[in-house]
């Protein structure tokens, strides 16, 4: 079977949607030459300069141009090279795009996508390694997608482009090289708002997003050797959140480990934990545990960066702690 990398899946989704719908247009820094991560390679050649636009380094203008074009009826897909740079256009995203439909009583529509590379693990340092889907989750009015597999990268990005709302798609940069079987057929779509149960087991629920899903799966394999069977849930989207799948699993297993790259101080894991503490309280048999990114800016040196990132080992340890009825010691800081 043909293989597809996570990186190629981005281009595949864009290619699929641009071919299908001529209102889909791309913009961003260096997107014409394929982009720094080569995720838009070949698109300008195929679709021409009226569909793929190289911008100056002007994130506010990029996000704002996407907003305006969407308002005017196109379906723009903007690229913010590193998701850390959302900070340079946060006003456009959080104050304009997220609110325009609501605050105009539904007069403005925002069918747009902004893609950005997210996450750490490559030694890119504090300003190029953050996972900032938590920033977006603080703001009602935007959908949030973060795929964990090449298949989902393709299907969810395609669905995001077809979605009538503004969607931020977080592409984990440590996943770009991962490979999987290429989905069959030419058209591929994965609906937004449906979590995937990647693995089934009744002792504990492991919940991940993007790169932490793989950690959950690895941890589940390790736990299986100890006779502990784990559900692994890939959230895929934070908004819309498939809380039903999370709650159903938690009610069945009674034990939950949430694994996020966001800093634990306030990450999406806290939102999930809070929902569980409120709505599944009576079914929980153990504390809701989070394995989160460290509450520090991200360091570069190998051992230090590893220390502040979640890992399969940390997940397995947390799950073992729960199943033995022990509460693991709080993470430092």
């Amino acid at each position, binding site marked *: 079977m043909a293989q597809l990398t996570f990186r190629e899946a981005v281009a595949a989704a864009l290619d699929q949607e641009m071919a299908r719908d001529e209102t889909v*247009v791309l913009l961003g820094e260096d997107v014409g030459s394929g982009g720094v991560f080569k995720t838009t390679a070949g698109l300008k050649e195929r679709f021409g300069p*009226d569909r793929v*636009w190289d*911008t*100056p380094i*002007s*994130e*506010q*203008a990029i*996000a*704002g*141009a*996407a*907003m*305006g*074009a*969407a*308002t*005017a*009826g*196109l379906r*723009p897909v903007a690229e913010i090279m590193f998701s850390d740079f959302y900070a340079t256009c946060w*006003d*456009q995203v959080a*104050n*304009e795009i997220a609110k*325009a*439909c*609501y*605050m*105009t*009583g*539904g*007069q*403005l*529509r*925002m*069918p747009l996508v902004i893609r950005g590379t997210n996450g750490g693990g490559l030694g890119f340092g504090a300003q190029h390694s953050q996972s900032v889907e938590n920033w977006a989750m603080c703001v*009602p*009015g935007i959908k949030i997608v973060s795929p964990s597999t090449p298949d989902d990268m393709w299907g969810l990005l395609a669905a995001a482009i077809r979605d*009538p*709302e503004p969607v931020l798609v977080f592409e984990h940069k440590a996943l770009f090289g991962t490979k999987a079987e290429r989905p069959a057929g030419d058209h591929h779509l994965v609906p937004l*708002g449906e979590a995937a149960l990647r693995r089934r087991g009744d002792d504990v629920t492991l919940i991940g997003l993007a790169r932490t899903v793989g950690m959950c799966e690895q941890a589940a394999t390790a736990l299986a050797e100890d006779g502990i069977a784990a559900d692994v849930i890939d959230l895929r989207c934070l*908004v*819309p*959140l*498939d*809380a*039903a799948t999370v709650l159903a699993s938690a009610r069945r297993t009674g034990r939950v480990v949430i694994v996020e790259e966001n800093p634990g101080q306030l990450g999406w894991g806290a939102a999930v934990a809070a*929902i569980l503490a409120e709505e599944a309280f009576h079914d929980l048999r153990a504390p809701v545990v989070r394995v989160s990114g460290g509450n520090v800016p991200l360091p570069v040196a190998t051992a230090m960066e590893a220390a502040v990132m979640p890992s399969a080992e940390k997940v397995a340890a947390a799950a073992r702690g729960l199943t033995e009825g022990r509460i693991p010691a709080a993470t430092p800081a």
Partner: protein
Amino acid sequence: MPRATCVTTFGEVDAPVATPPRAEQTAPDLRDLYERMLRIRQFEAKVDVLYRQGRVRGPAHLGLGQEAIAVGVAAALRSGDFSLGTYRGHAHALARGASEEAVLRELLGRVGGICGGKGGSMHITSVEHGYYGSYAIVGGHIPTAVGMAWASRIRRDGGVTACFFGDGTTNIGAFHEAVNLAAVWSLPVVFVCENNLYMEYTPIGDVIPVERPAADRASAYGLAPLVVDGNDVAAVREMALAAVDRARRGDGPSLVEAVTYRLGGHSVADGGAYRHPDEVAAARTRDPLVRLATEMAQSGEMGVDESDALVTRVKGEMDALAARVLEEPTPDAAGAWTGMWSDGSAAWRN
């Protein structure tokens, strides 16, 4: 490029004009422009009163004295063109044709408000009339306007976008990025800086390193420095026609500085005590309505009696409108939980 001396509220300014007046340009119907300005003036004067009576929820920023810009530019746009403005946006919505009733309902928090009660004064929008919204974050809408023009450019549909903002707004990063991108991509957009000489309570001269907030920045984007007397509705219309024409022809953006004065405070809550009374008094003599009425009286186009009667009629209409809207019901709480998504729903999770 031809240059023209235009008389602004500062005195004479020697300013280049982007394009010569178009051959097919028709003479403006001054009576019509006057009436449009008058309706806006009376509408906002009524809002001022209503605010003081505690009837308006939230802040309101009036454009009293700046009506010639909204009206003059709107007169240069076609239906189907886009425009966007700021929290000081009543005039811009109304000038494009937005319903006075629906706007007032929004301000007074009644059912049928133009934004369904969700926007308030700072977010008046009337997509039906091509007015794509009022935005309350300084400069935040300029990139959006550029995006709308970009869509027109991609579709090659001949559409033009007009974007209004204040003098103080030229200091914010979004202004720079947006005007720059529009210039790089040669987009059909007309940026209109309403230079009312103040950024809230601070004279604009205290916070810019150049003399003219917009015109002195134009060359940074390869654009011509255009200045127009923003209290002269015919001049604004003429400048706007030239800029719109240039945009429609595919020759790219223009940045127009329209010099004016805000007769009231920054918002209805501001008494404007930081301005010398003489300055305000002098500005009143250059009120765009007074000025046009005087001109028309002199030319015989509209006599003083007639314009007085018009004022009385329009004022009466606004009083009646307000009285009627105040009797109307207020929106339900339930509406808050709708309309975050375009299908009318608002749930973020299942």
